């Protein structure tokens, strides 16, 4: 059975920027340049890559925060039990989609309204989508606070974001997201602002919730070590394209694309006796090869492991 929750085909997001004060020509930044991926029900897909490679743009285009330039995104509508394209669905379908797709942002200090109490922040989505009777909503807020480990919940309802710590704030963000009982959550570096000792508890919380509530995540990060802990599969992005996608352990053990190798070799290892082997690549050369071969075909190398072909240049399969 095909149990895909999200299917992304040839997603493109270009930004037009002016070439300068007196220039008439406009430059086009290809932030996301034709990417394909699927996310299955209950799966966590990691999207990794350097800053500026298009990870966040992908996320924003996916959840309709920014209009995409072209491409299709199909979403499994649980109400109607079928895949629907998010472009040509009716209002009803769109509402279902928005309810089922939520986002957790990077910075818990900036993504919560400082003038609202925790209760109002978490309750807002229920009010907007008009879910449940008015008196039941507070009940729901208390319930979700307990789920994300903010106990006793009564202590948090009337507090403001500045009264709680960063880790607790991120729990509030998660609570606000999950109160909609979404099927799909996009997480944009949700733990990178948190301290090491708190980071793991947030990651564990998200993993447990995924299991209990059957949520799928698109997990955006630049840290492969975090991605390894969180994700079933990892997609590596470079310059707006996915260059390699595979099951997590397979990707780490057997990276094929030179950029993936470079990325893996740049992660520090928490073991002083381990000497990292540096894998150097020439970015300009790589960029040129990719530019020259706009063909976006991915080669299947077995084990559900796909690599961008570019030109099947010998360097790809050198080892």
């Amino acid at each position, binding site marked *: 059975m095909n149990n895909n929750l999200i299917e992304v085909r040839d997603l493109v997001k270009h930004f037009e920027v002016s070439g300068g004060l007196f220039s008439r020509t406009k430059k086009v930044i290809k932030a996301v340049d034709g990417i394909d991926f699927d996310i299955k029900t209950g799966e966590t897909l990691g999207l990794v890559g350097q800053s500026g490679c298009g990870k966040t743009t992908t996320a924003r285009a996916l959840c309709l925060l920014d209009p995409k330039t072209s491409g299709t995104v199909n979403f499994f509508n649980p109400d109607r039990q079928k895949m629907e394209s998010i472009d040509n669905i009716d209002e009803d379908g769109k509402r279902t989609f928005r309810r089922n797709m939520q986002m957790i942002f990077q910075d818990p200090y900036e993504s919560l309204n400082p003038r609202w109490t925790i209760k109002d922040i978490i309750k807002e989505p229920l009010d907007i989508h008009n879910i449940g009777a008015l008196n039941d909503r507070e009940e729901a807020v208390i319930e979700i606070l307990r789920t994300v480990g903010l106990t006793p919940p009564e202590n948090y309802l009337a507090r403001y974001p500045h009264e709680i710590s960063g880790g607790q704030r991120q729990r509030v963000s998660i609570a606000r997201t999950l109160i909609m009982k979404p099927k799909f959550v996009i997480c944009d570096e949700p733990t990178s602002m948190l301290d*090491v*000792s708190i*980071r*793991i508890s947030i990651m564990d919380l998200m993993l447990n919730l995924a299991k209990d509530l059957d949520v799928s995540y698109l997990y955006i990060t630049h840290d492969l070590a975090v991605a390894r802990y969180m994700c079933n599969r990892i997609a590596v992005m470079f310059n707006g394209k996915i260059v390699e996608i595979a099951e997590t352990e397979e990707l*780490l053990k057997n990276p094929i694309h030179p950029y993936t190798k470079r990325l893996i*070799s740049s992660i*520090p*290892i*928490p073991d002083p006796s381990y000497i990292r082997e540096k894998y150097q690549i020439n970015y300009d050369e790589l960029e040129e090869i990719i530019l020259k071969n706009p063909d976006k075909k991915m080669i299947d190398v077995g084990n559900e492991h796909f690599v961008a072909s570019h030109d099947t240049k010998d360097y790809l399969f050198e080892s």
Partner: protein
Amino acid sequence: MSNILEVKNLTMYYETIDGNVDAVKNISFNVKAGESFGIVGESGCGKTSVAMSLLQLQAENGKISNGSILFDGIELVGKSENDLRKIRWDGISIVFQGAMNAWNPVVKVGEQIREAMREHSPESTKLQNTEKINELFSMVGLDSSVADRFPHELSGGMKQRAIIALALSCDPKLVIADEPTTALDVVIQDQILSEIKKVQDLLGLSLIYISHDIAVIAEMTDKIAVMYAGSIVEMGPTSEVFKSPQHSYTQALLDSTPSIKGEKKKLRSLEGEPPSLIDKIDGCTFAPRCPDRETKCNPSQHMQLIEVSPEHFVDICSIGKESK
């Protein structure tokens, strides 16, 4: 090897309207010439306060109440501002946290470095300074043309490299790097770390490397100190501390760090949060969060470092756990 820096019983607090915040409590450590010394811990544990008090650049409400800082045999505590100016940058320089965002946006990068050089060695000519800057830039992997550019024309990685060049501009003996790669992504971080290592080897610098990232500390340092709530709870050669951590907090930090090598292991998180340093805590500050508090340690014990093996010190509360 001789010690370039000897810190003894350093205690430092911030005066606030709510009371005194004991940011650094009775800390002692030595840094040998050419050595790289790491300080690791969570935010708010006092890492940066230690760095700032070494140069006495702490905020105005920060007061050193006790202890001594011997740099190259010279006592820094109690020195006048004028004398300290001669040590700063010439003797000890610092790469501040987030310093790459502290460039003056309307002055060219090279000019800002030249400013420091003029201040500290007024006798050298403009030509000499330019040569020096070119040399430093090539050392940190920057093109010499960067000197004529404004900060907004540079990427984050380039700005950080230039900051390192700035820190090296007056030939210091000791460089303090306070989270120099925190805002950078992994690939750039990797490049900066290599540059720092390369420069350190080349110039025989001593380095104090401050970070919350265990993996980075593992790669960069010879010796580490683990800080918690203003105190050092464990200190020793990096390889030994990683191989056989003695303190429960060190163990917890190691257990909460994911890695891409080796078996995928279940990570452990630490319950609770660090204590507020305004509260005067009697006994072990880590006890409320300590996973071993029931079984092993003695929470009423005052913090005190004990040498368990050569150069490897650990807080006394964790020593008790062996005997119990």
